[in-house]
Structures are given as structure tokens and as C-alpha cells.
């Protein structure tokens, strides 16, 4: 291939050209806008170089919302393509690229940053800490993630997108069958983002183990912090597998090694196995924090302590262990024999037990509670039945013999969306609505919020229940079109309508944000929901240092007890507070990583070597750097505190 040919999109279409123009114009508008309003300096000082966990969290949130829409557009395109037989809206190659990027974007660049946003924003506040253990590493994590995301997203305008599915199975993902640079993007962009995630894992385990407020024993931690802790432990154990896997995949594609080829001894099933050794725990990295959020929300709005705290923790620990022993349920039909199938079948089904424990705990919390139907609570109430349905079909899939019927059909697609959407996406929207006032100082409109939740659920049911039916009838997944005679068309049309309703729901969410920015009252106090844990005990907006005085904890809901039972949270005098300095290094280093990734994807070796040296130079610079942070003086804190207190009344 000629040098410049590689940068061209292999199968361009009108849609791709249109989005190129769209992206170009948006970028231009952003650059012009920032310059016009003279915001470059502000951006650099307050955001790009920030090491504040709250701001880093917000940047994760923005990325996640952005990707939610990017992935959502992909989804609508797919559903539209399948809504009628013999549709020619997308051709096969384009369809392949769309479902591949949809999967990657949704799991890795939407759901992951969304939960990491919650880790970042909430964990330090919930445990009464000033920041995370390694603030600068945290910034690096974010920027690496961000650059990985950026790299992945330029794939469809430079060189072509990955087209072998989000699982990227070999030999399909090898050079022979995926000829464009698309899969190189997959290997390298995910690698860069994944390194960032791994560091997040290390950072938060350390934070949670070492930086809890006095009195907060492990068994007194808020449930979300527990779920974050366990999810981060899974990250530290699962992500290195992905690192190695992607490195080997990269070598196969770029250097002609034979890890996963079908000749010279290569073994394609090694990819499948290792992928799911990471991939299955990955889904629990997403779902456990979601469970944590539901626990916070349900106990807040049932006005009751969470039922069965200890069993909640225990079930999460059990789930995290089991999650590493079920990976082969993703390929029951690929020839591993009945014994292995049976073992993985049983371990898979076993996960339903601790999950069931959690469902019952939430139900018992609701049982005697005084339930208040706010938007976050509405999401949680919709979550319970819908997620249970997904769990039931999960157990159906876990029956290895029966899986021969529905493996790689729409039934599977329906199942995992049924757990991921009511499980993870609802939790994120519920959590976002719940924490919005803490983060931004005003509430989202409740009426619009409830409309969103209901529309989303109606859309969800219409979009995904039909897939169970066509799946059982044999509609394969990842099939770009079908003939009239299959009889799938009616159901697929319903499904498209459902997807469109979901799109409307998301549009309503955007409108809600816009509406609330304009019209929501601003004097809502620090604790608008009458909540229970420490993050609500500080001011809104949260000052840089979180808590002027480190809180003293005696129970699992310290803030609630301080309000109702006279427990004193803040004892003692204000002292000067040590804070880390901002730094541009994480951003600069990640930018170099971006260029390095790009050079690798297109095999531009000289550039790759130069940037690699650049990365090492950054590390060396960091090693010699002396930076002991700074202190916020007592006067400054007192001033901030009175200002924030004054703003409230």
C-alpha cells in the first residue's frame, strides 16, 4: 500500500463524509470560540493541568456523555439498518465497523469513564479525604484515557474503523481478513486508555485503604465506596491481562508474529480465552459500582439504613472472585468439550446467587421504608424488575447445552443489553441526577427527569424484548441484513421504534440539563435530598480541600446520624491544609502518547521512535522533579468557609 493510501477511509460513504465535515466544523467552532472568549489560559490553568479529583471527575463525565451520544448514533444506525429486510442504508463493511465501534465505545469509552467519574468525584468525599492518594497520577490516568478515546474516535475519518467486533476475535482481526488499519486502532487506542485505567485502579485502592477519615473502619464504609474498592481490585487484576493481550495482538498485526494466526503454531482460541479472562471481570467492574449507587439511592429515598450491610459486602466479594472463573461461558460452542462446559456453566450460574442476595437486600430496604419517588429513585425502582429479567436470561445462556441454540444470536444481544442498560446505564443516570446538585449547585428538573426515565424504559422494552424472540428464532447477531422470508422484519421494526424512543429520552436528558441550567433555583443548600453519607456534609460547591476539618466517623451513615442523632462530625480547629500543585506534565505526556499511538497505527517508525523517547524523557523529568505541593492557610480556609456558608442562607 502506498504511504498515503493508508490514511484514506477504505469504504467511504456519504455518512462518513458528512460526519467529517461535521467534526471539522465543530472543532473549528470550538477553537474559534475559546480564542474569542480568551479562555485558553483559563482552560490550561483550571482544567488541563488540574490535579483536583473533582475536576478530573467532571472531565471523565463530559467524555462519557460525549461518547454516549457517539455510541448512540451508531446504535440508531444499526437498528435502522435492520428495521426492514434488504435495507441498503449501510453496506456490510460499514455495518461491521459500526457494531465494532459501538461496542468498544459503549463499554470502554462510555461506561468506564462514567463509573470512573463516580470514583473520582465521590470516593474521596465519601471517605472524608482531601484528594486521592496520587493526584498527579490521577490526572495522567485521565489524560491517557482521553487520548486513547480520541485516537479511537478519529479512526472513522482517518484510515478506517475496526471491523472485527468489540471482541476482535482472531483470525478475523488478523491482517488477512481485516486489511485496513482499523484493528490497529483497536489494539493501540484501547491499550493507551487501558494503562490509564490500570493506574486508576492502583490509585483508588491506595486511597480507600489509607485515606479514610478517623473512625471509618472498613465495615463502616459507605456502600458505594465498597463497590468502588472491589471494582478497583478487579481492575488491577484484570487489566494487565488486557495489556498483554493487546500487545500480542499488536505484534501479530504490525510485526508479523504468530500468536493468534492459524499457521506457524498460532492459536486463535488463545485470543478468545484471554479476551474473556479480562472481558468478563470487566462487566463486573461496571456493574458493581452501579450496585453501589443503587444502594446509596435506595437507602436515601426509602429513608432507611441499607438492609443487610454485611451481606451486601460479602456478596460483592463473592461476585468479584467468581467473575474470574466464568470466562469460558462466552464460547461454549467453540469446542472445549462437555466437562469444561459444565464447569463454566455451574460457576456462571453461581453468580446469580450473590446477585440475588443483593436484589433481596434492596427489596427489604424498601419493605418498611417511607419511599419517596424522586427521579433517582424511579430509576432504581425500574432497575430491579428489568435487571432481574436480564439475570434470568443470563442463567438461560449459562446452560451450556441450550447455548447451542442461542449462541451468537440476538438473544444474547438482548440479554447483555438487558443487564447493561437497566444495570449500568440507569445507575449512571440515577447517580448523575442524584449527585448533580452536589456537583453543580442546582437540581435537574424532576418532571423532565421522570419523563426521561419512563421514556427510556418504554423504549428499552420495545427495543430489546423483540430481540429475545427473533434470537430464539435464529436471527444471528452482527448480520447486516436479512431477507423478507425469515419473518424477522416486524419485530425488528418494533425494535427500531424502541431505539428511537430511547434516543428521544436521551435528547430529553440534554434538554433537561439545558432547562435546569437556565431555570433551576440556585439556593438549594448543601443537602437537598436529605441524604446520609459524608459527601453531603460539605459545602456546595465543594471547596478545593473538600472538608475544612476532617470528619469523625462512628457509623455507616455518619451524616444522617449527625443530623438525627446529634453525632458530632467536625471536631477541633481548622488547620492549614496541604494540597498538591497543578502540573502540565500528565497532559503533555499523554499528548505524546497520542502521537506515538498514531505513529504505531500507521507504522510510521521514525515518528514512533521519537515519541517513545519523548515519553521516556517525561518520565525522567518527573523522576528529578521536586514538588512538595503547597499549603492553604488557615485564614484562607476560614474566608472560603464563611463565603460558602453565606451563599447558602
Amino acid at each position: 500500500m502506498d504511504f498515503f493510501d493508508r490514511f484514506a477511509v477504505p469504504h467511504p460513504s456519504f455518512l462518513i463524509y458528512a460526519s467529517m465535515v461535521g467534526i471539522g466544523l465543530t472543532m473549528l467552532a470550538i477553537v474559534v470560540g475559546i480564542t474569542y472568549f480568551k479562555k485558553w489560559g483559563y482552560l490550561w490553568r483550571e482544567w488541563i493541568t488540574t490535579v483536583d479529583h473533582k475536576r478530573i471527575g467532571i472531565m471523565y463525565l463530559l467524555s462519557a456523555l460525549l461518547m454516549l451520544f457517539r455510541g448512540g448514533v451508531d446504535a440508531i444506525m444499526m437498528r435502522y439498518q435492520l428495521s426492514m429486510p434488504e435495507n441498503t442504508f449501510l453496506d456490510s463493511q460499514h455495518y461491521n465497523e459500526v457494531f465494532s465501534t459501538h461496542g468498544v465505545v459503549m463499554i470502554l469509552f462510555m461506561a468506564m469513564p462514567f463509573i470512573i467519574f463516580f470514583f473520582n468525584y465521590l470516593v474521596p468525599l465519601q471517605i472524608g479525604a482531601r484528594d486521592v492518594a496520587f493526584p498527579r497520577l490521577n490526572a495522567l490516568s485521565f489524560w491517557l484515557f482521553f487520548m486513547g478515546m480520541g485516537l479511537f474516535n478519529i479512526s472513522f475519518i482517518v484510515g478506517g474503523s475496526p471491523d472485527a467486533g468489540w471482541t476482535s476475535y482472531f483470525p478475523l482481526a488478523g491482517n488477512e481478513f481485516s486489511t485496513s488499519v482499523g484493528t490497529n486502532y483497536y489494539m493501540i487506542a484501547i491499550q493507551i486508555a487501558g494503562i490509564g485505567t490500570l493506574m486508576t485502579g492502583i490509585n483508588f485502592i491506595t486511597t480507600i485503604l489509607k485515606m479514610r477519615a478517623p473512625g471509618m473502619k472498613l465495615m463502616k464504609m459507605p456502600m458505594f465506596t465498597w463497590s468502588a474498592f472491589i471494582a478497583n481490585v478487579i481492575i488491577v487484576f484484570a487489566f494487565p491481562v488486557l495489556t498483554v493481550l493487546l500487545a500480542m495482538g499488536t505484534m501479530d498485526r504490525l510485526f508479523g508474529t504468530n500468536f493468534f494466526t492459524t499457521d506457524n503454531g498460532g492459536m486463535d482460541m488463545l485470543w478468545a480465552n484471554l479476551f474473556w479472562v479480562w472481558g468478563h471481570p470487566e462487566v463486573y467492574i461496571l456493574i458493581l459500582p452501579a450496585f453501589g449507587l443503587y444502594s446509596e439511592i435506595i437507602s436515601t429515598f426509602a429513608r432507611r439504613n441499607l438492609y443487610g450491610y454485611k451481606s451486601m459486602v460479602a456478596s460483592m466479594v463473592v461476585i468479584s472472585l467468581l467473575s474470574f472463573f466464568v470466562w469460558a461461558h462466552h464460547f461454549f460452542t467453540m469446542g472445549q468439550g462437555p466437562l469444561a462446559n459444565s464447569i463454566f456453566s455451574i460457576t456462571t450460574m453461581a453468580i446469580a446467587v450473590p446477585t440475588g442476595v443483593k436484589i433481596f437486600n434492596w427489596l427489604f430496604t424498601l419493605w418498611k421504608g417511607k419511599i419517596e419517588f424522586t427521579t433517582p429513585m424511579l430509576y432504581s425502582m425500574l432497575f430491579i424488575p428489568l435487571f432481574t429479567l436480564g439475570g434470568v436470561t443470563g442463567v438461560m445462556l449459562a446452560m451450556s447445552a441450550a447455548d447451542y441454540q442461542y449462541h451468537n444470536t440476538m438473544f444474547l444481544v438482548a440479554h447483555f443489553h438487558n443487564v447493561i442498560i437497566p444495570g449500568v446505564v440507569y445507575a449512571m443516570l440515577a447517580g448523575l441526577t442524584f449527585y448533580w446538585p452536589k456537583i453543580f449547585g442546582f437540581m435537574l428538573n424532576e418532571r423532565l427527569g421522570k419523563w426521561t426515565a419512563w421514556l427510556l424504559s418504554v423504549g428499552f422494552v420495545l427495543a430489546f424484548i423483540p430481540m429475545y424472540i427473533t434470537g430464539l428464532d435464529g436471527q444471528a447477531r452482527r448480520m447486516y441484513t436479512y431477507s423478507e422470508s425469515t419473518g424477522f422484519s416486524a419485530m425488528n421494526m418494533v425494535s427500531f421504534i424502541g431505539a428511537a424512543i430511547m434516543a428521544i429520552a436521551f435528547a430529553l436528558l440534554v434538554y433537561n440539563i439545558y432547562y435546569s441550567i437556565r431555570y433551576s433555583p440556585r439556593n438549594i443548600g448543601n443537602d437537598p435530598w436529605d441524604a446520609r453519607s459524608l459527601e453531603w456534609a460539605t459545602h456546595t460547591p465543594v471547596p478545593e480541600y473538600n472538608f475544612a476539618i476532617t470528619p469523625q466517623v462512628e457509623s455507616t451513615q455518619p451524616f444522617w446520624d449527625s443530623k438525627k442523632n446529634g453525632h458530632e462530625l467536625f471536631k477541633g480547629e481548622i488547620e492549614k491544609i496541604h494540597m498538591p500543585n497543578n502540573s502540565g506534565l500528565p497532559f503533555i505526556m499523554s499528548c505524546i502518547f497520542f502521537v506515538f499511538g498514531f505513529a504505531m497505527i500507521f507504522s510510521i517508525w521514525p515518528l514512533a521512535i521519537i515519541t517513545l523517547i519523548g515519553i521516556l524523557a517525561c518520565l525522567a523529568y518527573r523522576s528529578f522533579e521536586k514538588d512538595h505541593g503547597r499549603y492553604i492557610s488557615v485564614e484562607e480556609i476560614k474566608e472560603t468557609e464563611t463565603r460558602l456558608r453565606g451563599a447558602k442562607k
Partner: protein
Amino acid sequence: MKVDNSLPLEYSTEENNLKILGFWIFIGAEIMLFATLFTAYFTLENRTGNGPTGADIFEITPVLIETILLLTSSFTIGLAIHAMRLNKKKATMGFFIVTLILGAAFLGVEIYEFTHYVHVGAGLQTSAFTAALLTTLGTHGLHVTLGFFWGLFILIQIKKRGLTPETANKSFIFSLYWHFLDIIWIFIFSFIYLKGMM
């Protein structure tokens, strides 16, 4: 920065404690990384295609030399930390230097070994087995290389800044890393080389 003088220098500040725990967790991740590499290696060990097998290409002499060099360096970095605890700057630096020289020598032999493999027709692209072998060894070698420069930078800092809580903390963490690489090597030695030669 509050310094608690009742503790060893490397543990004497809050930040230092965090860093040491963080590093242990990082080692946990590294264990998973190497475990995955070993898994891939054992899966592909006999899938040699048209290429040579392990028994065909492994040679005991360079491997033994490498092992001795690395094991000794792990010992000398231990001595460096011991000297550091006794607050002996010169001795600390001395043992650091010895460690780094041994590390560099290890790398030298490993590079010789790799060129030898390529020479006898066991390059990266030859077969799944050679790819897994060279990747596993290469990842370890890369770690040693990075460790070499990291250690060098710490050495320079000790020279310039003396034994402060900061440099002590860095040296201690470096020693953990170096010991870890040694342990990985023992696995490579036993389960790749010795097993492969039998």
C-alpha cells in the same frame, strides 16, 4: 511535610507510606501481567510450526551467567537498602552502582542471547513458540532496562540531595521492583529454560 523520625526514613512521611502501598499494588498488577505472559507461553510452548523447539535452541551457559548476575544484583540492592537504613550515603551509593553494573551486564548477556536465537533461526516471526518466548523474555528484559535507568536517576539524586525521606523512599521502592524482577527471572529460569531443556 510532616516527618516522623521514629520510623525508617522511607516510611517517615504520609506520602511515602502511600507510595509504598501503591507500589505493592502495582506489583500485584505486574504479577498478573507476567502470569498472563507465562500462560500464553505454556499454551504455545509446543506449537513450534516449522521452527525449532526450546530444546533445540536453549543453551545453559549464558542462562546461568544471567541468573548469577541477576541474583547477585538482587543481593547487592538489599545491601544498599541496609546501608541506607544505617544512613551511610557512600555505602548506599556504592552498592547501588554495583547493582546497576550487574544489571547492565545481565542485559548485555541477554542481548547476546537474543541475537543468537535470531541467528539460529528462532526469530520473532518464526513460530508461535518463538514469539511467546521472545515476548516473555523481552518483557522481563525491558523491565530490567527501565529499572536500570530508573536506578541510575535515583543514584544521581542520592548523590545530589543526600539521603532524604524522598530519596530513601524512591530507593526502597526501587529495591522492591528489583527483587520482583529477580523472582520473575527465577520463574523464567525454572519453567522456561530448565523445563525446556529437559
